[in-house]
Structure formats: structure tokens, C-alpha cells
């Protein structure tokens, strides 16, 4: 809502600096997003009277002489099509500054000296949408009622000397979507009395109510009033009214439409004017639209009406989408003589939905959806009628037709002074509280601690004691409330066990040199279900912004792959990134969220270095990192198993499922070539990664507890074992046999070499292991170790057909 400072002065005595006032309003009531002073940056714009105007032969230009209040008229060349002798216009004198910081100088055009410029409104800063249509392509001409004199500043007559506050109104304070509402608010803030105009209507036309019928469904329109004004003469509105519309951001149209807009700005009550010729049926009906009904709106938009739209009809055809916008078929036109004026309240939800449905939000609909003052309906109607009589010389027909007139129970709130102080943490006296309600123009009665407040209908946002707390608090001043800390029984703060575990995990991987990424949870359906053995039922949103953000991810890897693609396209090929976050699915008839961790690696372990000492990231580097993570989390590596598995988008022979204590916890591997090769930036890279389901892992690592053990006192014995096995025998299979048969002193087992090649048979490979034996209580004898080795050897030979070397 744009609120004019000079218009505010109609209601309150104000002499404050507008910027200071804006700050005060912001702190106490409504956020003022800005204060605009239209003349700012411009100078030497005066009113000029065109004495004569002759076309310059062979051009589209005119040579004018303009009285600008100086001894001699100025000769000015003007190219506007609507320039003519006798007009009062805006003249930028030589030395003037107009919009866009343009300086006006004396010049010569086709040999004719030009001492200034006659201006159009756009040239002096009016936005296109405020310029009256007839001046859109030419200079501005003051109307006859303007009462301007040559040489006077043009700023005041055009309202450019005003200050305009941009009220950023929250949905609850729609009462300030009017000048009167704003005045009450500013009056309360500045502790200044508010004068609101009260009018007495003089009806001077014949009674019309007997010849016209109105049918209203009060569910749709709890209040509905209609007046008739006859014999209007359509023309321009007086300049003072146009000025107010301009500064409120509304384009003047004609003296009838402008009046309805003006009254809406003044009172907050949306008004509508119909050409009475649209009601030859002498009937007006308010109802819901029927299927297949259509309407062409005033903005020429053709609308297929919805059965939930409220419409106004003449009994035969729809003439308006109620509360939103009128139809072309009932528009006020240049030859309109009789006008029907409507002042009504429509159901706010239906209006909001209609405006939304037809993408046609208007000043009226936005007021209806936020609520309007139930006390203003008939008063607004009468004020509009009076203005039409004054501005359009119409006659007000006798009588108002009331279609509906529902009542609202006045709001009375009972509370206590002590409650207000308790919530605010203040010690405001009852006298002070009484003063605050008097500033608000609320009737307040105080008996000792008891407080009874009658809330005026114009403040329909105030309904419960907490609302009164807010009124008192803000007007007392939030600045004046002392800052304190809650005094209450001790509470033990902290994370949940699960959150604590997640933080532990994140710290470890971050310590491994990984950079944390955050990706979007919404991705494409295709990506959402990838990187899994078996996709679960995906969760899709109903109205996605686009197909790339339609489905909640079931894996984090897809976000990291997107990040890799982005980085590698920018030559960042060495990557070590991770993400911790949730994945989502619909299983067992419910929506599920799981905490995951994923990491992605590409390039080398180190940055390029002068020693050429580097290691390419491969499966086993990443697996090593993962092993370290498990160790740091206290997971026994013997409980972790890797099984070659096929996982969507992962390399079919370089990928493993990870199992801890036989539970599937995630996967590790290389991105499949079709995934990387289809991407220009990634096509030459081998990219590895892992993804873990932390929901499965966290229960295994809760309550880590270390019982300290002394370091072994007796020496360990190391033996190396080298075997030849068939290609398909896995390390895991060999290790299982060794562990099973190594006896109780086998302390550690580590593979130290894998070989396949020319020195051994083609279908064979060789493994070398280092076995460490340790007896914590005694020195180990060779005999014991040899026994263990013999048992291992023979089992390997028997079970895996291994050849011991």
C-alpha cells in the first residue's frame, strides 16, 4: 500500500520529517519498505501557458511561445502531437533536470531556437502505467480545474512534492490497506487525534428501488448494497483526485471509475460501478457461476467461469466476476449516463481462489481475501455517491437496495493488566495502558486489574487477549522492553544419540579431507531411484517446478555426481566430496526418511606435485578410507563383508555391496562407464564412491566404550604365506579359511601381494599373506606356530585346491 504523506495530513496533524516518521512507523506498526519523494533529482519544472503554436513547415514539429511567468515568453520547439495554443503544460526550463538525470539546455532545432522543453509525464518520472491514456503518447495538459499559473512550480499540482510511504503490510493488518486505516495507525503511533470525515448524503433523484430487484445469496455476499446515480457526465476527474490516485499507484481513467478507486483507497472498501444499461432486466443476481458460463473481463481477458466463482448477473447474463473484476459488457463508457454503484462484502476464501484460479489478482480481490471493515460498507457507498454528484454532476436516486446485510457480533475482549505485563515482562501501569487504547481509538474499561476492551470493527485482526498484548507491546515500544534471559529450572541441552553419531561420522570423513556438499533433495525420477540394488517406491511431488526436481532422492550419490559434473566441467578434476543427508521412499504404506552418507572421489590422492609422487584414486584407496572410517567408529573389520554386486549406474565388475554383521549397509565402487562417458567433462575419468545407510550403521556404533588393555608384553611371530589358487577364488575365501584354521594365537592377517601374469599359469593367481601370531601370556614356541601353519596349509589345499609355494 502506497500511503501519501500529504493525504495523511487530511486526517492527522503531522509535522514530522517523513523519514523519521517512517522509522517510527516501522518500529511500532507497519514496515515502511521505502519513502519516495517523486520530485527528487529534478528541478526547474514549471507550469507554462502556450500562447501560440504554429507547425514548422516540412516537419512534424511545432513552434510555440510559452508564458512561463517571465517578462518574455519562451520560444519552444515541440514535437508532441497534442500540443496546442491555450494549453497549460509542464515546461522544463533551460538548466532543468528531468527524469533519468537528464539536463535541459537551450538548443536549436531546424534553425529555430528552443528555450526549454514541454514535458510528457513519463519524462518527469511517471511510470507508464500511471499516465492517463490520452497523454500516453504526448505532452501532459493540465485540466481546466487545475488552477495553475504560469511560472509556478509544476511539482505541487502534480503531487510530486509529496512523500509516499511504501507500507509493507502483513496479512493480518489489511486494515491499513486504506487511508483511513493507515491514519488510525499513524495517529496511534504518533499519539495524534484522527479526524475521519463523516458525510451526510443528499439524494436528489427519484426513488429507483421499486423498479429494481436484487437477489443475493448471503453465504456468498454477507453484505450487498446498491445505489443508482443518474445523468452523469463522463469526463476526467478533478486534478486533486488524479493526484491522489497517482501517488497511490493507480492510473486515472474517468470520473466514475476514479471515484470507486478513490473510495476504495480512502475506506478500504472495494467499490464497483456498472453502466445501468447492462441491467435492462431491472434485476441483479449474486450467485455462483454455472458450468460453461463465460465472461470477458475489463482487461479483455476471456474467462471460462468455474462453479466456485461468485458472479454478478443481470438475471440473464454474467456482468462481473464478483469481487475481482467487472465485465466488458457493463463497463462505464464515454456515453454512460446512469451508473449502478455496488458496495459489498464477498466471501474471502472464494474470492482468493477465484483470483488465483484465473490469475487475475486485483486491488479489490486482494482486499476481499484479507478481509474488509464490516462497518464501512454503506458509508463508502454514500461517499462514492456524493463524489459522483460532485465530480460527474450526477443525481443520486433515492434509496439504497440492500441485497444482504449480515451482522457481526462486536468483539469485546476481557483480560487483565497483569497478564499483559506478565507476557511482555514489563511493569506498565493501568493509566499507561488506558492511554495506549485511547491512542488506538479502542474503548477500554479498567477496573483494578481487569481490562475490558471493545474492538472497533475496523480492527478485525484483534480478537483475543494475546492480540491486546501485541497492541500494548508495540505502542509501549519494543525498544522499551528490557532484555532478559529466561529464568527457569535447569534443562539439559544436547543432541539426540543419533544426531551425535551423525556428527561423529561427519567429523571423521571431513578429517579424511573430504569437502562437504549439500544437494537438492528433489531430483529427476530417473536419478532418484539410481545407485541401488532395487529401487523403492519413489516419492513424487504433485506440482514439480520441472521434471529435474520432481522426485525425492533415494540416494545421495546422484547429487554428488551432479556436483562432480559441475566441477569437472570447470577443470576441477581432483575431487573428494561427501554429503550427509536424508533419502526418502514410500514403503510399508508410509513415507520413510533415512540418514545416508555418500562420498565421491576422482583424480589422484595428492595434487600434482614436483616429485611426481602420486597415487591414482582407485577402488582400494576408497575402500581403505571406508575401512578407516569403520575402525574409527569402532566397527570390528571382521564384521564387515564386501560382496561383488550389481548396482544401478555402478561398474558391474568393480562394485561391492557392503554388509556389517550380515546387514546390507551400502555400496562401494566405480561409476559405470555409461554414466561418466555420456558426460563431456567426466568421460575420461574413473570416479569412485560409496554410499552408506547410517540408519543401519548408527545402532551398531552407539555407546562406544573402551576398556583399556595393556600393550602385549610378549613378542609376536610373523610368518609369510604364499599360495597359488584358481582365478575365481577370492581373497575373502582364502582369509576365511586361514582364520578358521589359524588357531587361537593367530592375531593378525594381512594380504601383502596379489599376482597374476607370465610367471604362473594363466588360470591361476598368487596371493601372499603376512600372518602374525601372538600369545598375550607367554612366548610362542615354533612348534605351536608350525602346527597352526600346517593346519592352514592343508585346509587351503583341501578346501580351495590351493598350491602352497
Amino acid at each position, binding site marked *: 500500500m502506497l500511503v501519501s504523506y500529504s493525504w495523511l495530513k487530511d486526517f492527522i496533524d503531522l509535522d514530522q520529517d517523513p523519514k523519521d516518521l517512517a522509522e517510527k512507523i516501522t518500529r511500532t506498526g507497519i514496515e515502511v519498505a521505502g519513502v519516495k519523494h517523486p520530485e527528487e533529482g529534478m528541478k526547474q519544472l514549471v507550469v507554462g501557458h502556450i500562447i501560440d503554436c504554429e507547425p514548422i513547415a516540412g516537419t512534424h514539429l511545432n513552434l510555440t511561445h510559452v508564458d512561463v511567468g517571465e517578462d518574455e515568453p519562451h520560444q519552444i520547439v515541440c514535437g508532441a502531437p497534442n500540443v496546442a495554443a491555450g494549453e497549460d503544460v509542464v515546461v522544463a526550463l533551460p538548466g532543468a533536470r528531468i527524469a533519468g538525470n537528464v539536463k535541459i539546455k537551450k538548443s536549436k532545432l531546424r534553425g529555430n531556437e528552443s528555450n526549454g522543453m514541454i514535458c510528457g509525464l513519463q519524462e518527469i518520472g511517471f511510470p507508464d502505467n500511471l499516465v492517463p491514456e490520452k497523454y500516453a503518447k504526448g505532452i501532459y495538459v493540465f485540466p481546466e480545474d487545475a488552477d495553475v499559473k504560469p511560472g509556478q512550480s509544476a511539482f505541487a499540482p502534480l503531487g510530486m512534492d509529496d512523500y509516499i510511504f511504501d507500507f509493507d503490510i502483513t*496479512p493480518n493488518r489489511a486494515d491499513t490497506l486504506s487511508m483511513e486505516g493507515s491514519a488510525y495507525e499513524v495517529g496511534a503511533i504518533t499519539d495524534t487525534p484522527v479526524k475521519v470525515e463523516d458525510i451526510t448524503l443528499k439524494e436528489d433523484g427519484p426513488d429507483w428501488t421499486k423498479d429494481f430487484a436484487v437477489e443475493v445469496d448471503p453465504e456468498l455476499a454477507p453484505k450487498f448494497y446498491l445505489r443508482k446515480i443518474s445523468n452523469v457526465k463522463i469526463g476526467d476527474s478533478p486534478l486533486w483526485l488524479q493526484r491522489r490516485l497517482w501517488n497511490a499507484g493507480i492510473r486515472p481513467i474517468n470520473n466514475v471509475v476514479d471515484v470507486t478507486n478513490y473510495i476504495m483507497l480512502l475506506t478500504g472498501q472495494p467499490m464497483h460501478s456498472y453502466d445501468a444499461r447492462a441491467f435492462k432486466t431491472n434485476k441483479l443476481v449474486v450467485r455462483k457461476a454455472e458450468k460453461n458460463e463465460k465472461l470477458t473481463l475489463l482487461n479483455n481477458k476471456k474467462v471460462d467461469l468455474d462453479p466456485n466463482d461468485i458472479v454478478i448477473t443481470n438475471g440473464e447474463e454474467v456482468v462481473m466476476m464478483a469481487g475481482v473484476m467487472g465485465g466488458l459488457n457493463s463497463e462505464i463508457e464515454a456515453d454512460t449516463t446512469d451508473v449502478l454503484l455496488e458496495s459489498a462484502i464477498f466471501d474471502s476464501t472464494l474470492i482468493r481462489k477465484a483470483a488465483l484460479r484465473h490469475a487475475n489478482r486485483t486491488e479489490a480481490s486482494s482486499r476481499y481475501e484479507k478481509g474488509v471493515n464490516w462497518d464501512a460498507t454503506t458509508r463508502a457507498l454514500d461517499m462514492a455517491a456524493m463524489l459522483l454528484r460532485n465530480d460527474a454532476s450526477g443525481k443520486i436516486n433515492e434509496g439504497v437496495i440492500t441485497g444482504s446485510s449480515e451482522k457481526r457480533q462486536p468483539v469485546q475482549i476481557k483480560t487483565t493488566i497483569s497478564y499483559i505485563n506478565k*507476557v511482555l515482562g514489563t511493569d506498565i501501569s493501568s493509566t499507561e495502558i488506558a492511554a495506549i487504547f485511547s491512542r488506538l481509538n479502542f474503548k477500554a474499561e479498567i477496573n483494578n486489574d481487569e481490562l475490558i476492551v471493545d474492538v472497533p470493527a475496523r480492527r478485525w485482526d484483534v480478537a483475543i487477549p494475546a492480540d491486546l498484548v501485541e497492541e500494548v507491546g508495540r505502542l509501549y515500544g519494543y525498544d522499551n522492553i528490557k532484555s532478559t534471559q529466561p529464568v527457569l529450572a535447569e*534443562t539439559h541441552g544436547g543432541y539426540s544419540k543419533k544426531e551425535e553419531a551423525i556428527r561423529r561420522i561427519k567429523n571423521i570423513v*571431513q578429517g*579424511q579431507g573430504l569437502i562437504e556438499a549439500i544437494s537438492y533433495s528433489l531430483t529427476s525420477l530417473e536419478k532418484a531411484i539410481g545407485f541401488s540394488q532395487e529401487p523403492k517406491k519413489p516419492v513424487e511431488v*504433485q506440482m514439480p517446478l520441472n521434471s529435474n526436481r520432481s522426485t525425492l532422492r533415494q540416494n545421495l550419490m546422484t547429487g554428488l555426481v551432479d556436483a562432480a559434473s559441475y566441477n569437472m566441467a570447470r577443470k576441477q578434476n581432483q575431487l573428494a566430496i561427501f554429503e550427509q543427508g536424508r533419502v526418502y521412499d514410500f514403503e510399508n504404506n508410509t513415507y520413510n526418511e533415512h540418514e545416508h552418507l555418500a562420498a565421491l572421489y576422482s583424480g589422484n590422492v595428492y595434487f600434482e606435485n614436483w616429485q611426481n609422487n602420486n597415487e591414482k584414486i582407485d577402488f582400494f584407496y576408497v575402500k581403505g578410507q571406508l575401512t578407516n572410517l569403520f575402525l574409527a567408529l569402532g566397527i570390528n573389520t571382521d564384521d564387515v563383508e564386501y560382496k561383488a554386486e550389481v548396482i544401478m549406474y555402478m561398474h558391474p565388475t568393480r562394485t561391492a555391496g557392503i554388509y556389517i554383521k550380515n546387514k546390507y549397509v551400502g555400496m562401494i565402487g566405480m561409476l559405470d562407464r555409461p554414466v561418466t562417458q555420456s558426460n563431456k567433462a567426466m568421460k575420461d575419468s574413473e570416479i569412485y564412491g560409496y554410499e552408506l545407510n547410517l540408519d543401519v550403521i548408527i545402532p551398531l556404533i552407539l555407546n562406544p566404550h573402551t576398556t583399556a588393555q595393556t600393550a602385549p608384553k610378549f613378542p609376536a611371530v610373523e610368518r609369510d604365506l604364499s599360495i597359488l589358487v584358481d582365478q575365481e577364488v577370492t581373497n575373502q575365501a582364502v582369509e576365511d579359511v586361514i582364520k578358521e584354521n589359524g588357531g587361537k594365537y593367530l592375531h593378525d592377517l594381512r594380504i601383502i601381494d596379489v599376482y597374476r601374469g607370465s610367471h604362473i599359469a594363466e588360470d591361476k593367481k598368487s596371493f601372499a599373506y603376512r600372518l602374525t601370531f601372538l600369545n598375550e601370556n607367554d612366548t610362542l614356541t615354533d612348534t605351536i606356530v608350525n602346527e597352526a601353519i600346517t593346519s592352514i596349509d592343508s585346509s587351503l589345499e583341501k578346501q580351495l585346491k590351493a598350491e602352497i609355494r
Partner: protein
Amino acid sequence: MDLFDRLKELREKGLDEIDKAKNEEKLNDVRVKLTGRKSELTTILHSMKDIDPSDRREVGQRVNKLRDLFNAKLDDAKNEIVAALVEEQLAKEKIDVTLPGREMHLGTKHPINIILDDLEKYFIGMGYKVVQGPEIETDHYCFEMMNLPKDHPARDMQETFYIDSEDLLRSQTSGDQARVLEKHDFAKGPLKMVGPGKVYRRDDDDATHSHQFMQMEGLVVDKNITMGDLKGTLELMAKHIFGQDRETRLRPSYFPFTEPSVEMDVSCFNCNGKGCSICKYTGWIEVLGAGMVHPNVLENAGVDANVYGGFAFGVGLDRFAILKYGIDDIRDFYTNDVRFLEQFSKEER
């Protein structure tokens, strides 16, 4: 030859030989020759009985003295040789310490999580529990319980991703408030919680809008919580995050779940309140919304609003990070450019 002359001669020759031995091996030979079992000095000592008894004592003393001298000189020589060897070795091992070391990526936290962790730790220290709620939330918890019944105009302010008629991607973390209020046993003490997490809105992504971002909700409920407590809590938090020299102000605002509702501004970091393009020439930057918990929210969760009351606040973590680090495009948080992310490694707390 006189034995004393012989000893003199031995001494001169011996010292000369020690001097000439330039490596450990030669020095060893010299040691054997001069002081070993078959050395002349040993021989002399062993043949003492052949010496004139009046000279024996004198000879014995001289021989021992000479042997001590040889040993001392041999030790010195050996030390010198070893020192030279060490020197030589060190010279060989010399490196250019100005050459760079092998580097790898530094692990870093995402800037939003730096802010989040900082805030969480701050509030944990003040006795708040960190509570996490579901991101796929029901209309019931996200809206109805938070005093936003169906058709409430304020629902227009937040375009929401619905999954079906009842389930949605939460557009605010406020639902966590309702869930915790429902469960909390006030007989066991006051409620103090913060609830961080991702939220989603149907906004097209641009420099200032993101369809996904992070919020943190705060809630304190007990019998005597005041607006002054809210003001004090918010001021301390703002100073903790944005610096002790920031000024703050509260201004009236509107949220369906609080009454009174306020927004907090901090004085502009850029212009210190004088007015600049960052603060849109107001001198203030909006950082969060807050208020006293609306009685309906308490009652909806089964808490007696006549006895209990409290305050709630919600901060946008993306916004905090944007303001704190001077980031001008919110999308930078989600494209995960490592060059952008790595710069925050020094911000770790």
C-alpha cells in the same frame, strides 16, 4: 739403542702415523700396530725382566704414558673422521626446504552447516535440546497445528510442495514445535528446543530464491516466559553470530503461530546503519522472525495456555550464511563448486 731413545722414536713415528690415517680402517690398523697385543709397546712391557732394574720403573711409566697418549690421539682422530663422515652424509642429504609439500584437499564443512553447528552448540550450552523432525510432513503438523487452518490467507505466503492431499514437503520447521509440544511432559521441567532442518517452497531458483533451504526453529515454553526473555535471547544470538558491535531492533510482524509477532533487524554490516544498497538504504537488515507462542498452538498441542506460555523464533540458515559471508547468490550453496566450498575451511569452529 737406548730404550728411551727408542721410545722417543716410537712416539714420533706413532703420532705421525695417526696423523696420516685418514679413514677408520687405516686408523684401526694404526691402533693395532701402536697399542695392540703385538705392538712394540706391549712387547716392551712384556720384556720388562730384561731391563735394568733401576730403569724398570721409569720405562714402565713412560710406556704407559705413551700408550695413553696414543689412545687419546687415536680417539681424537677417530672422532674427527666420524664427524667428517657425518658432515659428508648431511651434505648429501641436504634438501631445498623451500620446495612445496605434497598437498591434498582439506576437508571442510559446508558454510550453512558451519553456521548451523555454531548455533546448535551455542543453544546447547544454554540448555536447549536439538530436535529433528520429518521433512515429509503432514498438513496437520505443518499448518493446522500451527494455527494455519485450511483456507488461511497466510498459506498463500508459502507455496508448498504437496505430495498428496495430506502429506507435503515441509515449508517451515515449525511442525517440530507442535510435535515436541505434544510430547513434552511439563511436570518434568520447562521445554527448550531448537529444531534445524531442510525446508522446501515452490519458488523458482534464482539469486535470492531457492526451492530448498535450511531453517532453525527455537522454542521455549514454561510458566513465566516473557517477551523480554525473547528479546534478550535473540539479541545475544545475533551478537554471537554477527558480532558484538551489531545493534538490533524488533519490529511488529505477523506469523500465524505467534502473537505478538516480531521480526528482528540488525544494523547493516556494510554501512553500519548509514544506509547502502545492501540494506536498501534503511541501515537495517532483517535476520529473523519470532514471537510469543500463539495460545492456539499451545491448546492444539494439549498445553494449557492459561498456565504455560513461551516464545518461538525461526532463522534462515542460508540467510545467516549469506549475510555473514557476503554471498550474493543463494544457488552457490547448492552447486557445490569445490572452489567456493573450500574457502570456508578456515571458518571451522
